């Protein structure tokens, strides 16, 4: 007889219940199955009403982030065998409002992401005739690590400050702002610093470091925020000593 493993899955159907509940499912245990495979088995074979987000199944799209046994994980990247003998607790990402079952409302993150202007800002576009904006491999290396972010929001679910201060811009957005600050083609560092020096910005971070621990892409948002703070502090001292120089 085939072995099975138990999944305790958080359910929330707003039209039926006021509070999330837990439902348990027995799924076949297969060594090569990730938690997402088990959820898809439930959806296909046991209970079609279970809702969750997923797309690529290979750690690229960042949509299957959930809380697995209390830790934020990409469910496509953790195997059932990591949690033997079970049961495996699957819940939605912490700190986000739940829309239904394992689906959370990510609009807060999207708003914050846009706020930090994560795109290349140019003071003046050069004419096409001058050719492309070139970059050396070294210049690419300075920001490449921070550009690996897949917006999975595991770092938000891991950040106790985001839980306590909903206004906090949060790890991924700050790391992405830093990604563009470090880009040799970008000229928007000052604009971003003006936004991130305010309440809810870099100074809200108390360097807990959980964001970096849970990041599935090794982006190191905590490192990005500390770098950002150093730049912010340097700018602060500069504007204190040379009030007419810095903006």
């Amino acid at each position, binding site marked *: 007889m085939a072995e099975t493993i138990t999944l305790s899955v958080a359910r929330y159907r707003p039209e039926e219940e006021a509070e999330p509940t837990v439902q348990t499912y027995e799924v076949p245990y297969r060594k090569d199955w990730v938690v997402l495979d088990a959820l898809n088995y439930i959806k296909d074979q046991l209970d079609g009403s279970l809702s969750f987000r997923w797309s690529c199944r290979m750690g690229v799209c960042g949509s299957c982030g959930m809380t697995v046994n209390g830790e934020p994980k990409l469910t496509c990247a953790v195997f059932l065998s990591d949690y033997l003998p079970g049961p495996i607790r699957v819940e939605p990402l912490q700190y986000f409002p739940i829309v239904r079952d394992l689906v959370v409302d990510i609009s807060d993150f999207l708003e914050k992401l846009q706020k930090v202007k994560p795109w290349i800002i140019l003071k003046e576009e050069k004419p096409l005739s001058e050719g492309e904006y070139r970059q050396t491999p070294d210049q690419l290396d300075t920001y490449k690590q921070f550009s690996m972010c897949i917006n999975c929001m595991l770092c938000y679910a891991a950040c106790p400050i985001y839980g306590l201060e909903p206004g906090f811009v949060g790890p991924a957005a700050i790391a992405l702002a830093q990604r563009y600050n470090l880009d040799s083609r970008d000229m928007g560092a000052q604009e971003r*610093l003006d936004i991130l020096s305010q309440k809810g910005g870099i100074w809200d971070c*108390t360097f807990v470091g959980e964001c970096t621990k849970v990041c599935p892409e090794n982006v190191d948002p905590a490192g990005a925020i500390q770098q950002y703070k150093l730049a*912010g*502090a340097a700018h*602060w*001292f500069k504007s204190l000593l040379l009030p007419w120089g810095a903006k």
Partner: protein
Amino acid sequence: MTGGKSPFLWTLFSAGGTVAALLFPIHLFLTGLAFPLGWLDAPSHESLQDLVRHPLARLYLFVLISLPLFHWAHRFRYTLYDGLSLKHLAPLIVVVCYGGALLGTAMVVYTLWNLP
């Protein structure tokens, strides 16, 4: 100027953390292990006194003690805010933490100034 006093306090926190992480282990090793266990010959009281007579040695001791106090103050402030959920006591916590670091710094200055 943006960010209020945060950049200033964070700089002290960060500098204090660097000092504590890089220099404390050396002192702990020397005075806590190497000298008492006889791995190295302990300097005499007189030679240490000669050493701290030099202004640079005093400046070193000032940095070594004062900056980590501000590191503590900042970390402890947020431990109380977030770890123990005492943010409603913010004004008191700020006074106790940074006041404590300032008091400690004053004591260091006083002690170093009055060394024979």
